[in-house]
């Protein structure tokens, strides 16, 4: 099994609302509300900690769930969020996203 690293995309807006973490993709405006477990994974997605370690140390320690079940669920969650550009996934540790480029000059009216 190859290792997975996950990092939160910068193109998202997030906020706790009514006790749930809510995330919106800035790319397609899709809104997600995360369960407690998903919120743990989301908050631990720093690009440097392997997913297996997040699941084992954060999820399995906090919730009474077998490692293989938790990891399978975590993979599905990661796949769902990455398909909307909310999470970045790699088999290598992920660096912070590059800063935005310089602003182009405005055009004249025709």
């Amino acid at each position, binding site marked *: 099994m190859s290792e997975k690293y996950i990092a939160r995309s910068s*193109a*998202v*807006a997030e*906020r706790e*609302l*009514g006790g*749930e973490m*809510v995330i*919106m*993709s*800035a*790319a397609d*405006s899709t*809104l997600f*509300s995360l369960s407690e477990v998903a919120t743990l994974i989301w908050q631990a997605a720093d690009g440097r900690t392997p997913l297996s370690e997040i699941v084992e140390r954060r999820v399995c320690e906090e919730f009474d769930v077998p490692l293989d079940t938790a990891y399978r669920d975590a993979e599905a969650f990661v796949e769902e969020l990455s398909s909307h550009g909310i999470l970045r996934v790699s088999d290598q540790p992920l660096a912070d996203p590059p800063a935005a480029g310089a*602003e*182009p*000059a*405005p*055009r004249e*009216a*025709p």
Partner: protein
Amino acid sequence: MAAGIFPLPYSTSPAAASQRGVTVEIGGIPIFLESHDADLRALLEQRYAGFVNLAATPSYQFEIRLEPPTQSSGDDARAFKSGSVWRLERGDFRAEWDVRSRRGWVRQSPNPYSIDSVLRIVHSLVLAEEGGFLVHAASGVRQGRAFVFAGISGAGKTTMARLAPPDAAVLTDEISYIRRSKSGYRAYGTPFAGELARVGVNLSAPLAALYFLEKGPHGRIEPVGPLAAARELLRNILFFAQDPALVKRVFESAVEFVTRVPVARFTFAPDERAWELVG
């Protein structure tokens, strides 16, 4: 009337400026629409009657030039940001607006619909910066409090506006204008009309509640939780641009709104009793 929030310096007096264009003040934000075409100026004065404020110092300024019609207005309007400049376009117009200079231009055929769309986009972008928004909703003021009735086409926006009792003022039957205020939110009248084809009343009031409309046999009001409220509100907010920074601001605005304003689902029978449950 309130002066512009970021007054533009007039190169001439307001009286002289009125010979060059029309200042349309919606939501307390005056926008000067300049045109050399006297017929278009007359059209704008008629279209925005009740919202023209000759004395206001404009916050923003657009120069409109007429072009022969090219395409229909059937497409959705789109907005793209490049640096400090927003580029706005639809089949029947193209426009640019520099948020730094607060000036812009519009190229359109001689019709009242193109500039209407430009104004909606500009106001929605301005509001997004301050935590407000335009939303697909009817709204009205009764006893000094504003009520907003949101919903998709057919949900009952026009019906609620039509059924407004004599002591209620209809702010709009189609697009509601929501601004943040020091103590909460205010709803403003807009000239953006729906099926009633009637401009709203130009006044504002503190926002008391947001209702998501649903037609049914019996009147019923049920509170909506913050998550469902945010989800449904976001579906109804007018959104023209996929600019990531703007998406984040609109998300923040919607979430902030539902934590501060009572939100409920309003099932109503379309008769004169509909407004009895409001309040």
